[in-house]
């Protein structure tokens, strides 16, 4: 589904990713761990097509050259990024935003757009699945949301937009145990043989719930070690320091 080949990225002449390789097949869940500043968010931003990076290398998504697509085109193709720091957009109602977003994607895929009633039904169903307080959806997008509410809002969006590749950038940071379980359930319910995940985290905690197929260690802009779930445990025990 996704293949990254020798990916290098610079910002303002600063080299952040230095030749990264990664393959994700349909249905797989990959976890990336790594110290702060190692380039995890940079990787997720590049996969989503954020501007401002100087990028070298190859990224193929379902056989297509991803680097040629704009951010929203990637979203239309099924790439979803749960942001590490979800943005506040003043004045924009969260429901309005969700509806605009889902219909933009549906339209691009040639599917029928949702009318107000279908949309409300979907929202109701998804938010009750995720135990997400619907009242929040009538507030301005992320404005005044607590850290946990913002993260849950990202997961709600993920489950509504039904992406093929979901990238979760430290979605678990700052969540309490209950919220963590909800987020994991959100991921697990989307998990099937076609959907893949790239989960960026510092903690084994989340991985206990989600059980990744592969775990990678990102350090100094490269994946320096890959393994299975055991690697996560080991990393948490001995720290990133001791891996080179």
């Amino acid at each position, binding site marked *: 589904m996704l293949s990254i080949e020798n990916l290098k990225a610079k910002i303002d002449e600063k080299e952040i990713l230095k030749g990264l390789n990664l393959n994700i097949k349909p249905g797989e869940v990959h976890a990336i761990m790594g110290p702060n500043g190692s380039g995890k968010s940079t990787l997720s931003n590049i996969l989503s097509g954020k501007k401002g990076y100087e990028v070298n290398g190859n990224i193929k998504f379902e056989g297509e050259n991803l680097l040629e697509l704009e951010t*929203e085109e990637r979203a239309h193709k099924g790439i979803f990024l749960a942001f590490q720091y979800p943005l506040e957009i003043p*004045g*924009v*109602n969260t429901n309005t935003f969700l509806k*605009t977003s889902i219909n933009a994607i549906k339209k691009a895929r040639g599917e029928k757009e949702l009318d107000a009633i279908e949309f409300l039904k979907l929202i109701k169903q998804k938010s009750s699945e995720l135990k997400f307080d619907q009242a929040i959806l009538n507030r301005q997008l992320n404005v005044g949301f607590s850290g946990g509410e913002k993260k849950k809002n990202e997961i709600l969006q993920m489950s509504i937009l039904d992406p093929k590749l979901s990238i979760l950038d430290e979605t678990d940071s700052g969540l309490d145990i209950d919220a963590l379980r909800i987020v994991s359930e959100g991921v697990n319910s989307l998990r099937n043989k076609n959907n893949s995940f790239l989960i960026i985290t510092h903690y084994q905690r989340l991985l206990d719930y989600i059980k990744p197929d592969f775990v990678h260690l990102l350090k100094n802009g490269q994946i320096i070690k890959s393994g299975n779930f055991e690697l996560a445990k080991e990393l948490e025990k001995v720290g990133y320091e001791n891996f080179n």
Partner: protein
Amino acid sequence: MTTKKQEFKMDSRQKEIENLKDYKYGFSTDIENIRAPKGLSEEVIKFISKIKKEPEWMLNFRLKAFERFKQLKEPNWQKPKYPKIDYQDLYYYSAPKSMKDKPKSLDELDPKLLETYKKLGIPLQEQARLNGIAVDAVFDSVSVATTFKEELTKQGIIFCSMSEAIQKHSELVKKYLGTVIPTTDHFFATLNSAVFTDGSFVYIPEGVKCPMELSTYFRINASETGQFERTLIIADKGSYVSYLEGCTAPMRDENQLHAANVELIALDDAEIKYSTVQNWYPGDKDGKGGIYNFVTKRGLCKGKNSKISWTQVETGSAITWKYPSCILKGDNSVGEFYSIAITNNHQKADTGTKMIHLGKNTKSKIISKGISAGQSDMMYRGLVDISSKADNSRNFTQCDSLLMGNKCGAHTIPYIKNKNLKSNIEHEATTSKISDEQLYYCNQRGLNQEEAVSLIVNGFCKEVLQQLPMEFAVEAQKLVGISLEGSVG
């Protein structure tokens, strides 16, 4: 290995935008007109008055204004400058011929007129009753149709064209016309007093809450014609009315002048809500043509506990120059001004409000959202004046500007005068742009650049959009999006 910078490719999108940019209301209707002779003179004024079968006092009102007008100089302190207008080269009266002997009912109306309003999306037919909005439509200079009349009459509400009011409700018009905007006011207001041709008249009797939105649609059709409407709304004690105004004009190469006067009077405990969605033709991409929208709007909170609220969405016109104002004379009266003004391409706007606090415990609130794009120029100019008698009065002003690109300008000038130690004035203003991070977030959720901008700008304007009646809010939101198309890249 491929090397590729991640950049947005805008070419195909640019084309799409060009196509969208066409002014949706830019058709003109082929209708025979009766016109006054070109130019401005006592004769022309007498002609207008005569053709409208006006009483003597009305003619005198006009002539007095005209005398004054001859002494006034055209102001030029405003920011948007415009080429000199030759006032002798305009028609001051133009009416569709079929209106000469006014149709008694909508069925007798010229089908072409009905067609025009249908294209504008304004239902004049009685079956439009479902919409629950009473409409008065003004085509060029005359009112062509007023709907729902009977329904309103039952409650004693008068909603008719100004010409009709002058004849049938002479005492009311005579009592209030020119009391908020005197005939000797500034240049354009005085010109209007001399030559106004039609407009809407509303009277809400004591204690009556008007059961439906009242609405006027203005359309300029004839070329070389100035449009000078006059609107007068009186809300008697304890009454309430919500009034909507919409405007469009065909695309023409030359500039057209629109200088309306709107007077609102709220007596004790009365409330008037006045909303405008102004989408006059703004001129083309290079700034050719478009309407000069030089309008005087003023409301008088005459009685105690009265309230006047102006809401405007100004997206059209080559130049918009207006300051809908409130004179808060009655104790405890309230004035509000909610404004969205958007300029794109070569449009210019100099708009804002005046809140004059005279009575005790008067309150005013100003929320202004200005958005400039392209090579346009946007000015907020406002006055808050609390007099020494207006104890315990308050004003709050929030003025936000959004710039899109660096060929446009945003200019904020509030004049703040406080002569009362028991009163407070608070003013805040910001200038910002849409952040790349916000756009990226929206893009990641599948919205393209245009959709993302429209969404974020609508969020920026939310406080004002909320003030509009439902039917208008949806229209206005779309307008906000359309007006900015092609401005971000």
